[in-house]
């Protein structure tokens, strides 16, 4: 399963709910969710923990737009729009969290 999250973890519970329920798979952070994968963020520790169970990706255009592309946590893979499409294509199902 590819979990797609687009909400800031400090505003909404989507990231926490995903990490609480899903056993593994891939997580793609887009839009405001990319903040979670930046060094020193309150959610960064949870992302680092999640790397043991999930492959974690963050969308570079969204990181760049928010001025945080240089703060991406080690182990989180940056992907562009093409990479987004590939991730969706290679997983049998996607779950776009709201």
């Amino acid at each position, binding site marked *: *399963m590819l979990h797609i999250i687009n909400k800031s973890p400090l505003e909404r*519970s*989507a990231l926490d*709910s995903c990490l*609480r*329920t*899903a*056993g593994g*798979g891939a997580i793609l952070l887009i839009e405001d969710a990319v903040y979670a994968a930046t060094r020193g963020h309150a959610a960064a520790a949870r992302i680092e923990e999640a790397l043991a169970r999930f492959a974690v990706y963050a969308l570079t255009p969204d990181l760049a737009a928010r001025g945080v592309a240089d703060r991406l946590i080690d182990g989180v893979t940056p992907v562009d729009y093409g990479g987004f499409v590939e991730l969706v294509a290679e997983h*049998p*199902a*996607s*779950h*776009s*969290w*709201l």
Partner: protein
Amino acid sequence: MSNVKKFVFVNRKAPYGTIYALEALEVVLITAAFDQDVSLVFMDDGVYQLKRGQQTQAIENKNFSPVYRALEGYDVEKLYVEREALAARALTEDDLLVPVTVLSSAELGALIDSQDVVLSF
């Protein structure tokens, strides 16, 4: 039928603050009308959708909670509720208006993983 897919609808929003819960119900009914395999998951504030005793006259909203009781007639009988979400809201199964299966977070995650299509509301 070979074109039956397993659909799970993940409900995470309380009923009247946003339109998501009602919209999810509409899609569930349409999906059921197409004879698909439908499961409903209620987690986070979504568990409030199933709270008994909703009275909406004073907020001038349609009380759509009776629709959950109609789901059985649409052969939608797989309703799953997250135990942790109930506990965090001081709710128990007895507070809910339909029979459900209560699962742990991990069990719920495995259930969602086993579906063909996941729609989040």
